[in-house]
């Protein structure tokens, strides 16, 4: 090894604490990059592979009833590579040991072979025997959440009749990666599932023998989806078809796409954020370290080493740190990625979701880390090699503190000498002070963000579950019912209040754009289910016209007064028109809203409702549930307390992991900035501090000069940190808002306090650690040395 290379290693060892700080901070940036980009890639790849391997449908259609023979006509449509006709429906489940009724989506399996579209991956057990009407497969999420074992029994009410079903297997399907009950936004894996059973048995249960009410299609590569959809609609029009649709209307895929969009936002934003900060810190530290190497640089040049060799010598140190940071960051990113993958695996039922970042991800991480380190050291190295050897060997001229403004002079004249030293150093080295302030402020900003997410979630939950949905349960019917159905519901045990509800799945067309959404009918002055906007105000449903959620209005490019075309997606596929009355800002969902009677009239079903919202006496909980488990006309029962609990658990787990990552990295950042600033400040001031000790100042008094500077910079970072955190938070909330949620920025005073406290705590800890250097100051040695 060349002597210069040995010097690189020894220098790194000598500055090991600063080196560790740089490697950790830069490594955090790399880890976030590997995790976010890798996670996004893993999910994308897993989805693609899963869809390909298990033949995810390209198109789907629901209809009332078509004879099985129609399948041939569908298969013959040009562009269709395979078609699977199925029987599908909803059923109430009475799960053993569960007080409330659950519900499930039932899907038929072909008599022979496996489904040619939307195939299943069997996790456990075996396929149902086509000759046994009581054998079913259950989706893995429901089985896991309820602890089902093979051979367990389920009681299900299908089409008004109670059946006892036996679980023979547990399966996953690309069609149900993300399982939510129709019309629900939050998954409740223990309360809503998917059951697959033999086609004949299911057809019998739904009075569809020799017929089907659902079909899914795979298209050949050259197919034009719009043309195929029109052909399918043509074939199925006589059979009550609701119109063929593609993946973006299939609930599971739609959710996945939304999630991947958020992940893409995160993959773009977070690593950039952390890496910019890391580059920044590397720059501060390296500039100071190399500045301290001034005389060595002069010496090397005096010996005859070329500028290039000297520059390369210092660049090597930076490169080694970049390699170290990449190694650390890659391992940390991989571990975090695996952690994230296991969290995602609970939401998204892929047969196997493994975190895997491509070699390209690691390579770009290395490239970015190296670029960061080189950029960080560049200015300092160039400045050093430009000096003539003699100048570099001579001690640097004493720092001039001469040019202070009059205001500063008058302010500093009121301070004691020690505080004046602090103030003058901060003002004299504005760039250095600013970088420390910015570094700490960014750490505060990250912590503010970490505190914002839970606060936003709390607000969202509060609005949705306390302000908007004040019912205990929503009961939805298999089809629209006369309003009189509220009377038998009133007579259920413990019922206190019943209000009607109505929801229609529709496609809204405007200005050449079409969006499928739910059109929700609301009762004016409702006491249970209400529309509450982001400002927590109750919005009354318009009696004439439609209220559009802002996200929906933007998608449709619609404003108040515009005429919308509304197409029912089920039943008679009615096409009707209504004007936009107003734009609203709900926090959950991006639906359209009308007064309930107006909606029923618009759908030409006056006086008919699709659900009831119920408040009942908690003391009668079990009696109420027993009664509804038997109710034949119910398609589902959505319990607010369960939905809230489930959403809370999901958020806590998801947000919990993210916050853990945020918090760890913010601490590393705050600690790294503060620690390296403290160490370098000590090194720079060692002589002055030792002089103060010699002059008779106590350790405490001398510590004040060192700690005071850091404390002042830390305090200066508070305001910019809070502003940065707030602005980034508001911007992120806008980015993360989608069809499902509109995230308001919530000012969380406690979160801000924690962020500021934590960051300043890191600064204080770093200052205290470095302060011990004052106890070890070599008074004699320092005084012998030249400036």
């Amino acid at each position, binding site marked *: 090894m060349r002597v210069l290379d040995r010097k690189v290693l020894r220098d790194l060892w000598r500055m090991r604490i600063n080196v560790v700080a740089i490697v950790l901070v830069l490594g955090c940036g790399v880890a976030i990059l590997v995790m976010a980009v890798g996670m996004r890639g893993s999910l994308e790849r897993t989805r693609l592979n899963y869809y390909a391997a298990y033949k995810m449908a390209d198109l789907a259609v629901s209809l009332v009833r078509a004879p099985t023979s129609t399948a041939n006509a569908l298969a013959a449509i040009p562009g269709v590579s395979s078609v699977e006709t199925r029987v599908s429906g909803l059923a109430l489940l009475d799960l053993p040991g569960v007080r409330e009724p659950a519900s499930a989506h039932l899907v038929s399996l072909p008599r022979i072979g496996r489904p040619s579209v939307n195939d299943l991956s069997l996790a456990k057990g075996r396929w149902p025997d086509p000759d046994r009407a009581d054998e079913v497969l259950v989706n893995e999420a429901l089985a896991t959440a309820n602890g089902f074992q093979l051979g367990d029994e389920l009681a299900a009410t299908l089409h008004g009749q109670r059946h006892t079903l036996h679980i023979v297997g547990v399966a996953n399907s690309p069609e149900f990666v993300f399982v939510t009950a129709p019309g629900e936004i939050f998954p409740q894996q223990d309360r809503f599932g998917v059951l697959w059973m033999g086609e004949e048995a299911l057809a019998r249960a739904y009075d569809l023998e020799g017929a089907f009410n659902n079909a899914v299609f795979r298209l050949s590569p050259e197919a034009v989806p719009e043309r195929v959809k029109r052909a399918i609609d043509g074939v199925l029009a006589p059979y009550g078809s609701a119109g063929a649709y593609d993946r973006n209307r299939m609930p599971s895929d739609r959710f996945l796409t939304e999630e991947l969009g958020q992940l893409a936002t995160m993959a773009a934003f977070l690593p950039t954020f952390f890496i910019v900060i890391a580059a920044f810190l590397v720059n501060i530290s390296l500039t100071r370290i190399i500045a301290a190497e001034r005389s060595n640089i002069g010496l090397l040049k005096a010996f005859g080493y070329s500028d290039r060799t000297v520059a390369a010598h210092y660049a090597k140190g930076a490169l080694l740190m970049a390699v170290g940071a990449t190694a650390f960051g890659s391992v940390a990113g991989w571990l975090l990625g695996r952690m994230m993958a296991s969290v995602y695996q609970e939401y998204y039922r892929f047969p196997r979701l493994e975190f895997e970042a491509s070699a390209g991800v690691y390579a770009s991480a290395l490239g970015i880390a190296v670029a960061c380190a080189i950029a960080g050291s560049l200015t300092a190295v160039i400045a050093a090699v430009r000096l003539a050897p003699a100048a570099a060997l001579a001690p640097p001229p004493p720092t*001039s*503190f*001469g040019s202070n403004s009059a205001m500063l002079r008058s302010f500093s004249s009121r301070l004691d000498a*020690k505080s004046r030293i602090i103030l003058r150093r901060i003002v004299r080295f504005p760039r250095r002070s600013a970088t420390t302030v910015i570094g700490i402020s960014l750490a505060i900003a990250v912590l503010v963000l970490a505190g914002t997410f839970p606060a936003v979630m709390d607000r969202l939950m509060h609005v949705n579950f306390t302000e908007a949905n004040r019912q205990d349960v929503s009961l939805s019917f298999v089809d629209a019912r006369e309003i009189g159905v509220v009377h038998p519901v009133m007579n259920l045990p413990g019922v206190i209040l019943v209000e009607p509800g109505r929801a229609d799945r529709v496609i809204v067309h405007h200005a050449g754009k079409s969006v499928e959404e739910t059109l929700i009918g609301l009762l004016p002055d409702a006491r249970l289910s209400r529309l509450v906007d982001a400002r927590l105000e109750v919005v009354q449903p318009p009696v004439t016209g439609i209220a559009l959620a802002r996200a929906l209005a933007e998608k449709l490019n619609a404003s108040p007064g515009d005429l919308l075309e509304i197409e029912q997606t089920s039943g008679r596929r009615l096409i009707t028109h209504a004007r936009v009355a107003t734009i609203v800002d709900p926090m959950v969902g991006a639906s359209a809203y009308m007064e309930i009677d107006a909606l029923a009239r618009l759908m030409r079903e006056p006086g008919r409702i699709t659900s009831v919202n119920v408040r009942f006496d908690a003391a009668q909980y079990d009696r109420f549930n027993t009664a509804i488990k038997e109710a034949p006309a119910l398609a589902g029962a959505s319990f607010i307390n369960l939905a809230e609990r489930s959403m809370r658990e999901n958020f806590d787990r998801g947000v919990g992991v993210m916050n853990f990552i945020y918090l760890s990295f913010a601490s590393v950042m705050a600690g790294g900035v503060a620690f390296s600033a403290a160490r370098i400040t000590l090194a720079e001031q060692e002589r002055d501090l030792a002089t103060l000790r*010699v*002059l*008779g*100042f106590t350790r405490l008094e001398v510590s004040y000069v060192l700690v005071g500077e850091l404390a002042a910079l830390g305090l200066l970072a508070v305001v910019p940190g809070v502003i940065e955190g707030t602005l980034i938070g508001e911007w992120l909330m806008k980015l993360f808002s989608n069809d499902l949620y509109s995230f308001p920025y919530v000012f969380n005073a406690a979160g801000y306090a924690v962020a500021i406290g934590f960051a300043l705590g890191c600064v204080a800890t770093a200052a205290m650690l470095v302060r011990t250097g004052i106890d070890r100051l070599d008074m004699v040695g320092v005084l012998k040395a030249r400036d």
Partner: protein
Amino acid sequence: MHVTENSGSPTGELTYALRKVCKRYGDGTAAVHALRDVDLEVKPAEMLVLLGPSGSGKSTLLNIMGGLDRATSGEVWFGNENLASMNDDALTQYRRKRVGFIFQFYNLIPSLTARENVELVNEIADDPLPAAEALELVGLGGRLDHFPAQLSGGEQQRVAVARAIAKRPAIMLCDEPTGALDVRTGVRVLEALVEVNQRFGSTMLLVTHNADVARLGDRVVRFLDGRIRSIEPNSRRAAPSDLEW
């Protein structure tokens, strides 16, 4: 301030009384003896010059007498206090109240003006000389608000002298105060020191390797290899302007 037992204080009318002071760095075969069995007595208001080649132990002795370092063995009496038995806090207080230091490389705080460098010490002194007066004494009355970077080496050293005298110290310890200066500026600094010695009656210990500078002292203590080789009185103290080096 830490006060040691009064009985047995050997100083009497003396400022310092040193008994068998040894300073050893390291142990065993690697041990380096910087001072061996040094006995020395220093009288009040005396100007004592410690002379010797570098490495002879003179600065080590000055550091021990200034409370910056500790003797490995022996007694260092300052009045009736034994510096050798003082703890760290007591030594800090000793430096703070009694000792004025002047170093070869000035050791001013670069972020404070001349006046503020002096005020820095005044803030912790009991009855300090006003900073402007101290600077006036060393001939810097016109440069009160200059920062160290705006002053020449000689001026910086005179600020250091003003800083040392402002607390009206009982002792002034000067370690090669002219070591980094040319003759002309060096003479001005020495003039300031002599002035202080005569005007305030401070006991002054001046470390130098320059035999000519030694002519300033009442007595000259010659060092070699960690031992005092001789202590000689000067029959007549030279004036700084008579010196050459």
